[in-house]
């Protein structure tokens, strides 16, 4: 197989990739496509990059191609979201993640691979329930065992995590030291809302 000559010298890559991006329901990985079609990964990647740019230049279009979770995926353009949701009457939209879930994900994303005890040490609260939920939503997974007493499970983020937040790689996370630690407006309003919810503000 390695020695065989490329059997599809006549492949016209752009239309094929466009068609495949359309039917694929997951991000398209250049390496995977290259393997199946026996092409150079660089050629596939280049063609996909061209397509990202070509779609970005289109005026009055409803579609674009995003780099996400290490691959390429066709998607609707963000400003259309409200009307699309309306047309789909999307009943199955998953709820947003809760604050404890987001906090836990933040810790795992930066510290992975990380044990439950380490997560709990950072957050100061038990993480049983939230780890289970994140696992069920396929945002985190067990990546191994830590070689210490008890061999606790190590957790890491999944490709679905990247996809969920529209990230391409973990490199897209800002360096932790760069995150300003002042109380954000969002924090304030979260606390405010929480207090209001229990009738205190």
């Amino acid at each position: 197989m390695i020695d065989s000559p490329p059997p599809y010298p006549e492949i016209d890559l752009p239309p094929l990739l466009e068609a495949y991006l359309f039917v694929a329901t997951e991000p398209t990985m250049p390496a995977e496509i290259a393997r199946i079609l026996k092409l150079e990964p660089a050629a596939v990647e280049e063609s996909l990059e061209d397509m990202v740019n070509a779609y970005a230049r289109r005026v009055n279009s409803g579609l674009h191609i995003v780099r996400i979770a290490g691959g390429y995926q066709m998607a609707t353009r963000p400003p259309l979201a409200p009307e699309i949701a309306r047309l789909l009457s999307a009943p199955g939209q998953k709820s947003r993640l809760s604050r404890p879930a987001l906090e836990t994900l933040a810790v795992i994303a930066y510290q992975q691979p990380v044990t439950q005890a380490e997560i709990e040490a950072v957050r100061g609260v038990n993480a049983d329930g939230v780890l289970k939920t994140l696992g069920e939503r396929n945002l985190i997974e067990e990546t191994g065992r830590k070689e210490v007493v008890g061999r606790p499970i190590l957790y890491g983020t999944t490709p679905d995590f990247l996809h969920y937040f529209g990230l391409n790689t973990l490199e897209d996370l800002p360096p932790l030291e760069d995150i300003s630690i002042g109380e954000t407006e969002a924090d304030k309003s979260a606390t405010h809302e929480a207090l209001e919810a229990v009738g205190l503000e």
Partner: protein
Amino acid sequence: MPVSASTPVSPPTLLPPVALAAFEGPLDLLLHLIREHRVDIADIPILQITDQYLAYLRAMEAMNLNVAGEFLLMAATLLEIKSRMLLPKPPRTEEAEDGEDPKQALIRRLEDYQRYKAFVSTLSEWEDERRALFFRGQGAYGGLYELPIGFGELNPGALLKAIQKLLAEAGDDGGEEVTSVRRQKITLRLAMAILWRKVQRAGSDGVLLEECFARPLVRLEIVLTFLALLELLRQNRLDATQDALLGLITLTMRETTTQEVVSYD
């Protein structure tokens, strides 16, 4: 340096303990108390903060509220720091043997935690931006482009996993064994899931009990739905109310359950 005995401090604005629900945990509460003092985390006025923190816990005790273990662990840490500060300063060598100063350790934890907390708002923005994208296959799930089936492609474990996930999402946590044979147990659990969804959807208005039975009434279904109802009531996940003697019975979600579900989401 005697710690902040002279620092002017506004009187603690003590929130009723029920407000503890508003905090993600002890670190969150501590950050809140520190902000009330408008000081840097590094200048944390341990004595006052400890007193305020304990006041919260005592108030919770007085109200017979269940104080979560993690809040108590933090209280122990604060008390340890406080007692060290009240003792004469030990010679430097001894302190070195002791390992890290617990106050410094707490400050470091708070700063770390604050960073992650700040990052949560970024994650939240990314979540919103990403949700403005629609991909193919997430609408009606038509699966038009799926190929003919292959045989032996998936193992049955995949099915089991799928239904377990659904049941978990439907809020089924039935921890107790139900005495019945396997198939019946499965059906009861599904009946619980179905009933739970129905009540959940109805929201605060609730749903009439009699609307929970499919018509015409089929005996097995009545029994199952009723068993499901009893089980959900037993687990304190539903409230059943009757507005008059022999009146209609309305089912609503328990307040606590609502929060629980939200927090696990």
